[in-house]
């Protein structure tokens, strides 16, 4: 978080948490999928469910998934634009339990059949947190380039990833490790100070024991 999260963003109203934050969540999800979206199923929780319509949260999420930025004047017209572009989506309510009141679960399917489940929340002032990816904990803001590696919980994977980053002169801003249980599914989430080249991600994907590699770049366009 920096000063321009407090003064800012410059955005189309009416709500920073329910409109701008929702655009950003959509945007981050689209970038995480990293291919054209064939279908998006959107599940609204808490305040997003209760007051989302009035704030245009639904339109904002779809706008973000289509790549619009928070100050795009077309946000109010995203449903019409989605129709023109043959972009399919659905909305439902969900109870995510203890999750932040402004939470949403988004299930994406890419044109190649690639699948992605994200739970994210809008924490105020247009800032967001991605809380879960494919059922495993994550915790990042979408403000930094972010590398998410799903792997089998076994020795050596953290070293492989950090060695690669050292080799590419990429500095780690934050790093978190989660696992479902000893020897089960594990995930590492790394926020980076520099961008990681796409070919490095391909290299990681081919490592034994690595299940899935997801990368988010705040700079790249959807």
């Amino acid at each position, binding site marked *: *978080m*920096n*000063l*321009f*999260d*407090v*003064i*800012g*963003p*410059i*955005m*189309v*109203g*009416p*709500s*920073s*948490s*329910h*409109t*701008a934050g929702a655009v950003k969540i959509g945007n981050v999800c689209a970038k995480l999928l990293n291919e054209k979206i064939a279908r998006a199923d959107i599940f609204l929780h*808490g*305040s997003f469910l*209760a*007051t*989302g*319509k*009035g*704030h*245009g949260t639904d339109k904002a999420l779809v706008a973000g998934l289509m790549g619009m930025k928070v*100050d795009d*004047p077309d*946000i*109010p017209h995203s449903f019409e634009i989605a129709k023109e572009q043959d972009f399919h989506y659905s909305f439902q309510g969900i109870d995510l339990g203890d999750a*932040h*009141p*402004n939470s949403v679960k988004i299930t994406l399917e890419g044109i190649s059949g690639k699948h992605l489940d994200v739970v994210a929340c809008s*924490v*105020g*002032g*247009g800032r967001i947190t991605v809380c879960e990816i494919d059922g495993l904990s994550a915790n990042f803001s979408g403000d930094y380039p972010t590398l998410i590696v799903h792997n089998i919980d076994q020795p050596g994977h953290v070293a492989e990833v950090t060695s690669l980053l050292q080799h590419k002169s990429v500095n780690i801003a934050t790093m978190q490790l989660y696992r479902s249980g000893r020897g089960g599914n594990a995930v590492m989430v790394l926020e980076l100070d520099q961008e990681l080249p796409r070919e490095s991600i391909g290299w990681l994907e081919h490592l034994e024991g690595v299940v899935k590699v997801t990368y988010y770049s705040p700079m790249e366009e959807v």
Partner: protein
Amino acid sequence: MFHSLEEIKTRCVEDNKSFYEVIALEDAKEQNCSLSEHFSHMKYFYGAMKDSDLQYQANLKSHSGLVGTEAEKVRKRRTENGLLCGEFTGLVMEKALRVSESNACMKRIVAAPTAGSCGVVPATLVSFQETYNTSEARMVEALYVAAGIGGVIASRATLSGAEGGCQAEIGSASAMAAGALVYLMGGDANQIIHGAAIALKGLLGLACDPVAGLVEVPCVKRNVIGAINAVSSADLAMSGVFSRIPPDEVIDAMKNIGRSMSPAIRETGAGGLAATPTGRKIAAKLI
């Protein structure tokens, strides 16, 4: 970002720097850019704030029809010298309405700290500049002061109505604006953080109860009270009136009050004004 207003004050004294410099230098360091780059970015945001005031269309109503056209009524009364609260406060009132009504009409605004509270900081700062012909650079410095105070509130408590109620949005905006006004009037670091604390204290416990869940009723008019409260709090601090509860503890109190608030008054549109017979009737009509 700082976690404590006292810490900013201490740094001002230890480093012999102004409140604005301490905040700006810290953030420029964190973002790995020069102070002048950072400053021109902040200047751009101040420009966008002025635009959000200028773009106001007197005849425009929000999609629901609940808000819009009110700022123009205040302008008329103000130019007829009909306002009890005087010229400067009247201008602040009018601008708070102009910017927050524009937000409800899906215009481009600067969230400061949120969109629902976007009228408070520009109303106070732009009115000050227009009244006292303050230089643009000095105004940008004041915006840094506001941002620094908001950063501490974000770090210790929250800026989200869904988490902390309206006190977290309008209350925080009011505290930010109060500190910025004290800075503009030449107050020292202690006066700045006490101006902010007095403003926040006055709005503690404020519910987030928007009718039909829209950022319209009562949000637009609450921008007025947040802005006016900032003006009086800044004047209090400049007069040498201080908060008996230290500023950081006031922020912690805001966080605790937010936690004990029922979800019905935390942006769910289920309680407070939203749950009144008329509030429900409006909601039913809109859905």
